[in-house]
């Protein structure tokens, strides 16, 4: 049984079908990439899994439990945590404070939560900025903060929404090695990405969405040679080789 099963999910917004009967599985401990041209429905799918939206049709099963329609905080408690495409740090709080908010889910005493937060910040390389207000971080640092904060909730699976967008190649390499480390620690990663180099090099498998439908699934090399995928990307500047 897969850790996460998306079963026949359909979602409509004001008559427009953002997701049409999409099904996929995410295996425990794998890194699954989700790609597709703009507007394909990737973030919508994440929003549905994480509980921000309810699907019009279909189910989300996580570790055997139907979590369709649960509120985001309930989804997080069950072990799925997401990051946002446009990062949402608590800008007036310190970096440490941001992570503490995440850590408080599993460590109800602030003192413990702080210890856990510091441990994670050391892991992700932000510990030197722990007392700085989050609003003063660079974009790359904010992305790492968002990741650290999500990790603080001790997730079994992370939904990462375009974690590499806006980063330069060196920063992307950094993030990729961080992701590998996180996976090695036992967290499943479900990643949406536009930066092809990033996702193709880090994913075990890739799922491709286009216009709300799943059009391909397989290893990165299989998918990049799939006719339909190439068609879908014609006109986009991304090279998938």
């Amino acid at each position: 049984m897969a850790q996460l099963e998306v079963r026949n999910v359909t979602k409509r917004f004001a008559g427009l079908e953002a997701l049409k009967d999409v099904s996929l599985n995410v295996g425990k401990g794998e890194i699954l990439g989700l790609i597709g041209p703009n507007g394909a429905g990737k973030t919508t799918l994440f929003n549905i899994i994480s509980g921000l939206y309810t699907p019009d049709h279909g189910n989300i099963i996580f570790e055997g439990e139907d979590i369709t329609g649960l509120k985001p905080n309930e989804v997080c408690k069950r072990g799925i945590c997401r990051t946002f495409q446009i990062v949402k740090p608590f800008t007036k709080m310190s970096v440490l404070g941001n992570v503490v908010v995440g850590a408080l889910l599993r460590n109800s005493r602030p003192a413990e939560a702080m210890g856990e937060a510091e441990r994670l910040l050391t892991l992700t390389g932000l510990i030197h900025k722990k007392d700085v207000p989050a609003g003063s971080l660079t974009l790359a640092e904010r992305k790492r903060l968002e990741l650290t904060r999500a990790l603080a909730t001790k997730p079994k699976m992370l939904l990462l929404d375009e974690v590499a967008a806006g980063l330069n190649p060196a920063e992307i390499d950094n993030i990729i090695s961080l992701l590998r480390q996180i996976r090695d620690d036992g967290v499943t990663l479900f990643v949406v990405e536009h930066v092809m180099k990033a996702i193709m090099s880090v994913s075990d498998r890739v799922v491709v969405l286009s216009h709300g439908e799943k059009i391909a699934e397989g290893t990165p090399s299989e998918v990049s040679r799939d006719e339909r995928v190439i068609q879908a990307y014609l006109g986009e500047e991304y090279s998938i080789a």
Partner: protein
Amino acid sequence: MNEIQNSNLHRLSNSYRRYLKYIPVIILVIVPPFVTEAYIVHVLFLCAFFAFLSEAFNLVSYTGQLSLGHAAFLGLGAYASTYLFLFHGIPPLAGIFAGGFLAAAAGFIISYPCFRFGLRGPFFALTTIAFAEVLSYVFVNLDAVGGAYGLLITFSKYGPSAKDLLFESKLAYYYIMLAMMLGLIYSIERLEKSRFGFYVNAIREDEDAAWSLGINVTRIQVTSATLSAFLTGLGGTFYAFYFLYIEPLGLFAIDRSVEIAAPAIIGGQATVLGPILGAFILTPIAEFLRAYFGGGLIGIHLIVYGAVIIVGAMLLPEGLIVGLERLLKRFSKGS
């Protein structure tokens, strides 16, 4: 100045800063008995009173919402304890909690449906305004509590009696109120450092992010509102037993809600000391205006409140206290 002298000075100013915050407290405790003008003691009481109420109000602001109907909670608290005292002989020291719980219940009734169903921001504010208006109307028509005439506590009949919160000297009321204010400040400081405090700050910054980190935003917002209502309700009893007369049109008026909210808005919403600072600045101004214009024109002080809210919102959105902190930081860096 060489390095050693510089760092010594810095160390000195650090320890100064820690004790700096106790100076106002000491002044507030020691000085008043030496004040001869009864009117000034009255103003001092009002300062502490509105500081307490505004600090209680502020709990809602911490979660990023604005309530413009806190007069409802003030009024419910006042009516509960006064009614129980006048008609059932229950002393206010017990009645105050009845008032608090009644107000808390109202706070829950109003906040739960709103936050659960997405009625936030201006719509929540409007709902609180409407709620206070509805209560005003209800109490005007409730003859059991005096209707439009309200309730009167005849001092000569029931007091002076310490256990009934009826004191001859205004100083006594002042000290009790001061103690309550200080107690509340201390409690909120501790709350800020607790898990609840972290969550509240997170919610205020970004609700969506908070949800995604496992926080039940609705539950926390409702809890804050209910707690805020409870504390405001406690204040209601002091209102009743100090002014000795309560009537619905004045008690539930939006003017009272504004008087409760303004110190926090101006002093700094979502800060511990903002409402206190705001109250100690605005209340004397309001009283001075009342005295100067002879009390015949109600509402003059509100022009000032309104103007200060506008200026504050535009120039110092985070409140006076944050502005002051920045100023202090700049001074200490200067050395």
